[in-house]
């Protein structure tokens, strides 16, 4: 039996390259900030190179790091190492959401209404799950 493949092309190159560049950009930006933040942390706390008890404090849940965007940004302005690391991590976390949002634009440019709608629904579901989870 011969199955006739339906005529279907992969995405045009520019779509792949645009999405790939967005992911790469997000990753490079976030990791650069994380590394700078770690550098600042160690510069402020020279004892971290040899201090023993400090690690227990650093790896316990607590108040020594921010848990809201405002706190993180305030800490960054105060040049706190942990807050700078957190800013980098937040950019890393935001990258996949940015990818979904960006894809909607890409599909619209390609006049691909079906996938623009699919991707918009995915984005709305993501935001819904975040809101539901955060208000728990």
């Amino acid at each position: 039996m011969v199955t006739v493949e339906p005529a279907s092309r992969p995405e045009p190159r520019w779509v792949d390259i645009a999405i790939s560049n967005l992911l790469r950009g997000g990753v490079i930006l976030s990791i650069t900030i994380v590394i700078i933040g770690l550098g600042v942390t160690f510069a402020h706390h020279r004892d971290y190179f040899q201090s023993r008890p400090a690690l227990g404090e650093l790896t316990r849940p607590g108040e020594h790091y921010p848990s809201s965007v405002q706190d993180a940004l305030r800490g960054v302005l105060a040049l706190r190492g942990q807050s700078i690391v957190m800013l980098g991590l937040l950019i890393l976390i935001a990258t996949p959401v940015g990818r979904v949002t960006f894809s909607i634009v890409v599909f619209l440019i390609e006049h691909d209404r079906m996938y623009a709608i699919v991707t918009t629904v995915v984005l709305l579901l993501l935001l819904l799950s975040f809101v539901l989870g955060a208000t728990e």
Partner: protein
Amino acid sequence: MQLHRVGWSEDNRVTPLLFIISVATLSFIGGFVGSLLGLGGGIIVVPVLTLLMHIDIRLTIGASIVSVIATSSGAAAAYVRDHLANIRVAMFLELGTASGAITGAYLAGIIQPRWLYILFGVVLSYSAVAMYRGRHTAKRHVVPGPLARRLRLASSYYDDAANGEIVYQPVRPGLGLVLMYIAGAASGLLGIGSGALKVPAMDLAMELPIKVSTATSNFMIGVTAAASAGIYFSRGQIDPFIAAPVAIGVLAGAFVGSHTLGRIDSHAIRAIFVVVLLIVAAEMLFKGVRW
């Protein structure tokens, strides 16, 4: 008798600097394996942090979700460019994982995890056996249905190991969507990386080439993890001092892994995936029985 084990974080010989270096090095392996298999790195990062470093489980979960996102974004940049990840398949199936994750979070208080662990342990074991046999032993020609054609899912990629262009037509997207919904719900309920369920669903139901399944799973896992990560962050479960070396190591590992997948033989990827799947299945069955 109380057994007190001294974890790394309490060990007097371990300085913060040594902690950062060791966690980053071990996370590299997680990112490498995760990017090859579409799993997200948690399978290495979680045992390293809990068993070796004795980190609080809440902070381990926070670091693990960061590792999933790092693997996903780090590897997908290469997979999308090389056409190994199928963007349309991913976008369509994300409808299932995203809605499943919401359902899972809601059911979390209602369903007893014990039976879920046993159920998914059995499902994963079955998937491992089915994937080991390989669907190619029974090579049938499945004609793509109207939905598969309407979604224009067909694509191709250049396989370095096989030295040629591999053209494929995904089938049964409806079944794939239902399975992704279940995978999303399971990850919401049990907090497991849903890659272990996503790859078999794409392989067995939609008949994608194995490398396309793992690469597309990689592309997808970051999206669902991002919503959870936001929640964990606001609950104070993301400790930058733990998550930073995890992110750095995993990203480096995912970068190397994503540039290696193309050159590895498909049969080898399938074999490694089956072994890892069996380990995950055994772990779930164990958790369920011991509950």
